């Protein structure tokens, strides 16, 4: 590992507080103020694809299937008449 790489590696892990300006603090405060608030365990927000989206997709598919079945039933009733 070269000197430059070593230096970058050493820097990568520290919050260099002395480099944080007043502007940064305001931006940080705004970011926190604009965050979504919830209780730990209430909205993990972590596995975004499979976990969060799947139930919604399933529910939508079920709803569509139910609507289709109802429409078919209605059509069949009309035809009988």
């Amino acid at each position, binding site marked *: 590992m070269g000197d430059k790489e070593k230096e970058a590696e050493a820097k*990568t892990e520290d919050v260099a507080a002395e480099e944080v300006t007043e502007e940064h603090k305001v931006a940080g*405060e705004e970011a926190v103020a604009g965050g979504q608030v*919830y*209780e730990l365990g209430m909205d993990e927000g972590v596995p975004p694809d499979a976990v969060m989206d799947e139930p919604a997709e399933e529910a939508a598919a079920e709803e569509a299937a139910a609507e289709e079945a109802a429409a078919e039933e209605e059509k069949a009733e009309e035809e009988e008449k």
Partner: protein
Amino acid sequence: MAKVIDITAQTDPNVHGGHMAQYDPDGIILHHTGSSDEYGDAYWLSHYHSNPVSTNQMIQRDGTIVQIVPNNVVAWHAGTSCLNGRYDCNGWCIGLEICNNGQGEKFTDAQYQTVAETIAYNCALFEIQDKDISSHARVAACAGRHDKYDPYGWDWKRMWQRVDEIRADWPWPIPVWYDSTSGSRIMSTE
């Protein structure tokens, strides 16, 4: 339960990687921020700059969790590191940055409570083993680096006692378990 402020939508995508290699995190690494300005920390850990660094969760002095990068996405907090024979802890560990100046400031009671809660919760959610929870100082030293000492002054015994208490009296009415094989969430009422 601890309050979570989720700012992941505002975090610069250039300060984190993609999903962890095995999708779920397998460990947790504790750090201190080394600063006394929490808003400055929130900015520094969520925006790209010359020394890019980020974390999954930042624990403020009042015990609030600021979620900066989702827990199963790679954040840049540990650098060269190794824990229990596995290198590159960023790729498989949640980073917890605890707000503290790193120069002898006492960690707050609220921080111990929140860290214990998030550990108990994430261990249950992701099936993380206790042996895979460690300090930045240790994982850096295991990889041959001895310049890290955080979280400085953290009382591990106290933290584990609180984790045990939370586990003995599980506070969440519906524990949520995440099946890493099928990618589906399993809800249990037991």
